[in-house]
């Protein structure tokens, strides 16, 4: 049992400690400025961290989060998949703030487990409709002009288990198939130019080196636009589970096309109809036909606190509503938040200046009067697209399209501050 194991008794202590912290904050406020009341022993008694040294600088050559945060981990849902090798886990959005996802918490979606490729054994091949079929080593790729950009990667299936109604009681599970990372790498178009793309080429096949040999067809226009071949995330090498040493970055598009352990790029004049673009990642509509090549992830948002994992424990008064918004079509223009299930909306505050196709943090600061809330957020992107309700999407698509569920999320807050995933009528 490790510190990250949710059954670890230390996690229980963490939860207890959190409640204790809330009580201490309330006690501190009650006595503030009066000169009366029971002194707080955390102040009046010398604490061990003040009385003696902590560990030295040699103790943690590669640091881990403090043990009190051991509950902030990726989690999986055992009943989702037949095994844990072709499976998914979820980013703990409820415990994060700002926009960048820590590397160790980025959700994983693997189809044959995590390939481990020694960097000296890595090869990338470009062939097909090119003038010069080429092989690159990792060192070769690092000689192309480098750029860094932050983008969200959202699984096409994120929120997909909510198509038929509220199911997962936690924002980690309803919205956690997403991460937002600063990637460093090279523009895909520079690498394609080195091989010389022939005029007849229209499509690119990207393929991974893992035992699933994950493969997708990508239109050449997108490949030449903003796609990257990335070898760094948040400043360091890619994590193995994110494609070390090299992955494809396809800004704004469904996560499945962001091929990890990228080993081959083939230029052709037609798509390849791979399993992941026919059997999977096609969206079945109510009339029995299915959309294919539905690449773009549309504007979406969710409130990450309060959320089922983040009940209101401090009582009435100032309350920070925190959330994330994103769009595969560009920047987020605005986010509205409702407290009453959509009767009235007010503008949230966009925090920082997120780039296009990246997570945008928003906040709304309210004075909670203790009454039940029905919280929703609604994103608008720079194209004017307004995040729809789940009902609006169901009317258009039915219940079985599986992917691309970007409907507004509702959290019901009860008088005690408890939060539940609900839908409204």
């Amino acid at each position: 049992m490790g510190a990250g194991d949710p059954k670890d008794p230390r996690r229980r202590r963490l939860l207890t400690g959190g409640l204790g912290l809330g009580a201490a904050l309330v006690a501190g406020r009650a006595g503030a400025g009066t000169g009366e009341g029971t002194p707080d022993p955390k102040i009046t008694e010398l604490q061990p961290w003040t009385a003696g040294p902590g560990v030295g600088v040699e103790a943690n050559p590669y640091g881990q989060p403090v043990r009190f945060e051991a509950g902030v981990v990726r989690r999986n849902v055992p009943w989702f998949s037949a095994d844990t090798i072709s499976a998914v886990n979820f980013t703990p959005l409820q415990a994060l703030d700002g926009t960048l996802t820590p590397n160790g918490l980025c959700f994983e979606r693997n189809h044959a487990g995590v390939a481990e490729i020694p960097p000296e054994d890595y090869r990338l091949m470009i062939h097909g409709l090119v003038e010069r079929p080429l092989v690159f080593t990792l060192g070769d790729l690092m000689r192309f002009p480098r750029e860094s950009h932050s983008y969200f990667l959202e699984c096409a299936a994120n929120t997909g288990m909510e198509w038929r109604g509220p199911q997962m009681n936690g924002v980690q599970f309803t919205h956690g198939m997403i991460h937002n990372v600063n990637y460093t790498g090279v523009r895909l178009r520079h690498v394609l130019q080195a091989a010389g793309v022939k005029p007849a080429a229209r499509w690119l096949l990207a393929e991974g080196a893992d035992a699933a040999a994950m493969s997708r067809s990508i239109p050449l226009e997108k490949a030449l636009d903003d796609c990257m071949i990335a070898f760094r995330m948040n400043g360091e090498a890619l994590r193995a589970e994110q494609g070390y040493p090299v992955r494809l970055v396809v800004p704004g598009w469904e996560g499945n096309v962001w091929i990890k352990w990228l080993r081959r790029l083939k230029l052709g004049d037609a798509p390849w109809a791979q399993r992941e673009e026919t059997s999977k990642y096609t969206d079945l509509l109510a009339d029995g036909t299915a959309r294919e090549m539905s690449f773009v992830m549309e504007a979406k948002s969710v409130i990450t606190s309060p959320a089922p994992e983040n009940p209101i424990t401090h009582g009435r008064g100032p309350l920070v509503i925190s959330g994330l918004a994103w769009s595969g079509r560009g920047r987020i223009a605005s986010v509205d938040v409702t407290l009453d299930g959509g009767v009235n909306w007010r503008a949230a505050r966009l925090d920082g200046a997120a780039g296009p196709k990246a997570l945008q943090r928003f906040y709304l600061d309210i004075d909670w009067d203790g009454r039940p809330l029905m919280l929703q957020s609604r994103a608008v992107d720079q194209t004017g697209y307004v995040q729809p309700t789940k009902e609006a999407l169901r009317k258009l698509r039915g219940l079985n399209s599986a992917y691309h569920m970007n409907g507004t999320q509702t959290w019901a807050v009860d008088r005690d501050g408890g939060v539940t995933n609900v839908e409204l009528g």
Partner: protein
Amino acid sequence: MSSWARLALLVLLAAPPAAAGPVGRAALRAEIAAWNIDIRPDGAGLPPGQGSVTDGEALYAEACAACHGDFGEGLGRYPALSGGQGTLKADRPTKTVGSFWPHLSTLFDYTRRAMPAYQGQSLTDDQVYALTAYILNLNDLVPADFTLTRQNFTTIRLPNADGFRPDDRATAEDPLFRAPPCRQDCRTAPRITARASPDVTPDDAN
């Protein structure tokens, strides 16, 4: 592709690589052959070879049935490969090779690239032809004495070949979602109609 997009593309392709001097090396024919495993719906990429339903049945029983079931029905949460025809408009569709997949090439390509699970590229081309033939037979699409070959491969048409359409969200949906949204007195007071079931969320989540 629009003429504008075509022009922009040509300009991009005409630009010299930003890095001076050669980076990378020529890919050798044998190297391309080793990795060039993809197959298109028009049959491009199909290797020489053949396999019969009979050979496929024996191999399937040995290598596939433990997960996909004796008749392709799928065991546990492992995928069904057969059945489900006519269910795509049903409340709970069954999406299989026979009911949903548009192209036979995908079955060959994916079996060779990734099956049996986590033993990718372990089957010979003849074995993949045989398994493909057997899965066609499980879906009642070829008779028991059928042999699939590179030559007859593209004559096989799957039932749902016309069941797909390009992404049309931009025209079918986006205009509906571009109106400036209501912000005051937008609806009658809502009531809660459904709640997440605590049974399906891992119990240590909260």
